[in-house]
């Protein structure tokens, strides 16, 4: 009843195009229920509307002892391949450039209560996610969002995802100019644009106001724009440097300069031209090579730029390219005019600690930006409403989400800071840890994501709690470090750009699987995520707090005056960093430390069965374990060689590590396989690649490709970039070999 009721009540309050979109989707839901739409078609339909799958949506869950089937009322009806109709799902809501109003927050809180689990989750791309939502409730949720100007359209699927921007845009002390109006115009222009409907993969865009700060993290995006101002004929001229081909994931790429000093009026058509080139030439069949970074890498940035210029020249004119410029770019106004403009600087220690970490002085005198940390990016419905009230009282509509999963209030009068602090403290939202080491970022991981391997949120929560408890004792050099955690190699927690990053993986020991995190050190947050950290070793999940303690203590002990973590980790080198944590890699017998065999916040004995085919604890194949371990050692040598600038050796070691891992797998079936690369690769290809046994259920065959291609080429690659990529891929190849071994052991025991 309320579904129909909301549709009728909200008629006329929604953007007509969005209303029609939702109507179409609602019809698709009904048709799928009746079996009149193919499940694959429906899956793509819902993804393009932000409706995502969630863990256990195949109806299988490992309860710590065995796999259990969830017997939903709708039985085998699906909403996509192996995705049951009744299984709760996630809805991702776009928040372009992070901008929110108190009214929107109110509505989000209502929806979390009525359709989700009373929690709004802010993502690392400024979106908001609702979890555990039933597919049949989605159209009503979408309508209620549309009525306050929000959309889920293209929040998932192979399209233009949420467009992010620096939350300080317009008030930053170092920016060239406010990028907000341009990001809003581009967001509206691309939403549902026909040129963006035929991508092979998702496409993420970010805006930055300046090049040197972290800002919008442009360098890790598919496309990014950095504002600049040049003086031409004595006059300041605004433009954008446009970058393309960045990305994290399993093979991180830094974006490359597509075009410098792009005039404001040329930004939208330039991005449109990029979209057309990507749609036309981007990979479509192999989704693991389909992001634009692979296309840019394949054709080279010069050729890609030429193709974009060529495309731009033939684009039919569109008045929307410049409409936002012609309308005038109005700056955001403060909700409250200054009274005294003076800050009351009392001596309350709680206020002072909060003032030190959570307050940023705007370039506009008398105003500040206040960061409200959300633990793990979560805020309850009740808190959201209270926070909306605080926003109304102090800053009006100038709220934004951040990629660090927090909320900021802009245009806070300095004279209001103490009252704002008191108001936030009253609702339990005045934690003084914004953008400190306590403010750990995490993707959903195994809590809700079907791709998660390890419990990133469990780990992040544990680290947050421990670090908060001793925050007063932390060295000043440590307080400002960033920790970011991803539940798997897909990098949603952005671990590559953290000082201390982690991504989930697993290892097998004594017939059991142990949750691990790969330690990634020395990523660069500044300069728009200017460089990525590199892996120094996989450590059992439960020992990661010890890793943080050791690394930070060593940093404090070793650092030179004024030396950053980035510089220290570079100076210490991979070998030195790895040595700090080397002994933590050892896995004891289960009986000696059973806690190591479960993950943070989850007492079930660890299993990767929830992300792949069902697996049981198999017998240890000791020779395989040893050989895979050996392969890891060789991969580490490759990393060290790369660091030392020995490109040829890095390439050779990376290749040899993959050969060794491949041989380990081949030997499980052909114990006497000769030590000849050709034979090993041929047998590996025949036995594991062609049979798809090496394939990850979600990553498919991508991890085998680097070995096959490198072997087929028959020679060392010459450039540093290729060697760096191969070194990264070698580590992932070995991880995949571990996973393959675990799957094989499961299959073996299942048939016995």
């Amino acid at each position: 009843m309320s579904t129909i009721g909301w549709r009728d009540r909200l008629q006329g309050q929604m953007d007509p195009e969005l209303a029609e979109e939702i109507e179409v989707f609602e019809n698709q839901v009904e048709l799928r229920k009746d079996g009149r739409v193919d499940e694959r078609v429906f899956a793509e339909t819902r993804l393009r509307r932000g409706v995502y799958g969630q863990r256990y949506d195949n109806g299988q869950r490992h309860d710590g002892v065995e796999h259990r089937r969830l017997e939903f009322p709708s039985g085998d009806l699906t909403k996509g391949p192996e995705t049951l109709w009744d299984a709760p799902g996630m809805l991702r809501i776009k928040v372009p450039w992070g901008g929110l109003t108190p009214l929107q927050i109110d509505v989000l809180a209502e929806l979390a209560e009525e359709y989700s689990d009373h929690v709004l989750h802010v993502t690392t791309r400024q979106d908001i996610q609702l979890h555990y939502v039933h597919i049949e409730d989605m159209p009503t949720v979408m309508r209620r969002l549309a009525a306050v100007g929000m959309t889920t359209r293209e929040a998932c699927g192979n399209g233009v995802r949420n467009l992010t921007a620096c939350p300080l845009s317009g008030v930053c002390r170092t920016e060239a100019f406010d990028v907000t109006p341009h990001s809003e115009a581009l967001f509206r222009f691309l939403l549902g644009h026909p040129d963006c409907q035929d991508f092979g993969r998702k496409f993420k865009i970010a805006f930055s106001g300046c090049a040197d700060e972290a800002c919008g993290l442009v360098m890790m995006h598919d496309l990014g724009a950095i504002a600049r101002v040049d003086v031409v004929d004595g006059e300041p001229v605004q433009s954008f440097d446009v970058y393309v081909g960045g990305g994290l994931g399993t093979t991180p790429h830094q974006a490359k300069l597509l075009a410098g000093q792009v005039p404001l009026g040329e930004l939208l058509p330039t991005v449109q031209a990029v979209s057309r080139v990507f749609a036309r030439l981007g990979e479509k069949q192999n989704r693991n090579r389909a992001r634009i970074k692979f296309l840019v890498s394949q054709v080279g940035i010069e050729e890609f730029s030429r193709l974009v210029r060529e495309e731009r020249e033939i684009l039919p004119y569109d008045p929307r390219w410049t409409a936002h410029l012609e309308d005038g770019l109005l700056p955001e106004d403060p909700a409250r005019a200054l009274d005294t403009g003076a800050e009351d600087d009392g001596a309350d220690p709680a206020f002072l600690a909060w003032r030190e970490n959570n307050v940023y002085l705007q370039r506009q005198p008398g105003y500040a930006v206040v960061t409200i940390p959300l633990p793990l990016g979560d805020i309850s419905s009740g808190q959201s409403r209270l926070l909306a009230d605080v926003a109304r009282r102090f800053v009006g509509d100038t709220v934004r989400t951040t990629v660090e999963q927090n909320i900021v209030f802009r245009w806070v009068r300095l004279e209001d800071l103490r009252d704002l602090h008191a108001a936030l403290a009253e609702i339990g939202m005045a934690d003084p840890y914004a953008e400190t080491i306590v403010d750990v970022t995490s993707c959903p991981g195994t809590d809700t994501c079907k791709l998660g391997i390890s419990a990133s949120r469990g780990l992040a929560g544990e680290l947050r709690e421990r670090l908060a408890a001793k925050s007063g004792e932390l060295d000043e050099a440590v307080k400002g470090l960033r920790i970011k955690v991803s539940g798997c190699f897909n990098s949603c927690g952005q671990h590559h750009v953290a000082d201390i990053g982690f991504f989930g993986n697993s290892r097998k020991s004594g017939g059991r699987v142990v949750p691990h995190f790969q330690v990634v050190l020395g990523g660069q947050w500044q300069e728009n995520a200017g460089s990525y950290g590199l892996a120094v070793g996989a450590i059992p999940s439960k020992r990661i707090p010890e890793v943080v303690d050791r690394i930070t203590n060593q940093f404090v002990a070793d650092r030179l005056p004024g030396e950053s973590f980035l510089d220290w980790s570079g100076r210490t080198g991979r070998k030195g960093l790895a040595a700090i944590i080397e002994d933590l890699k050892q896995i004891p017998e289960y009986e000696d430390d059973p806690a190591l065999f479960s993950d943070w916040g989850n007492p079930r004995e660890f299993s990767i069965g929830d992300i792949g085919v069902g697996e049981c604890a198999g017998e240890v194949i000791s020779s395989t374990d040893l050989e895979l371990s050996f392969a890891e050692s060789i991969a580490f040598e490759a990393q060290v060689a790369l660091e030392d600038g020995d490109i040829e050796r890095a390439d050779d070691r990376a290749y040899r590590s993959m050969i060794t891992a491949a041989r380990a797998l081949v030997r499980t079936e052909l114990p006497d396989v000769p030590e000849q690369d050709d034979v090993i690769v041929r047998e590996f290809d025949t036995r594991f690649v062609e049979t798809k046994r090496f394939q990850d259920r979600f990553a498919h065959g991508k991890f085998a490709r680097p070995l096959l291609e490198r072997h087929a080429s028959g020679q060392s690659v010459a450039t540093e970039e290729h060697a760096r990529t191969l070194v990264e891929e070698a580590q992932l190849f070995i991880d995949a070999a571990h996973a393959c071994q675990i799957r094989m052991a499961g299959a073996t025991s299942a048939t016995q």
Partner: protein
Amino acid sequence: MNPHRISVKLYLDDPAALDAEAVVPPFHRYIREDAVGGIPIDVARYAHVVNGPGVLIIGHQLDYAIDYAEGRAGISVTRKRDPEGTLAEQVRDLAAEAARLSLLLQGEDGIGDAARVGTGEALVTILDRYEAPNDDETLVRVEPALREAFEPLSESGAVEVTRVGGAREPFAARVAISTARPLERWAEGSAALT
């Protein structure tokens, strides 16, 4: 009235005594052993969120929670799908589910009395702003059902129903129960009481 979701919360006698994280292992076990109603799916941990939903067993039809909303700790059960019976029966059955969860947890080592809930007060929330906005008109519509739900749970049959919260919040009514029957009786639900 056929609301989208209904929740009933019983308050912990000694909120400070219960560590929300302590319920995580038994919650996982309850899923494994089918010890709770409906189709339980997973455990969600939100103890880090101030005044939030706490720790939940997320299910297809029912969510069970050690719930910290409104700044008061309690055990809440929310019906999300497949309602059965009248509104009064649905509410009473949710109270029964909350009582059962309290009793289950009280039997856990390391939790015991910390999971004890009072029977003198319950909060009923209707999570459906279209069917049940939080206003006096809704109170008039639902009060008879709430009385019918809780009167059998009182020795004297005396209950008081008061609407709580503002217009932006979901409809909620605080039910005060005089001379309440023991929790074990509550746990029997509608079938035993009618």
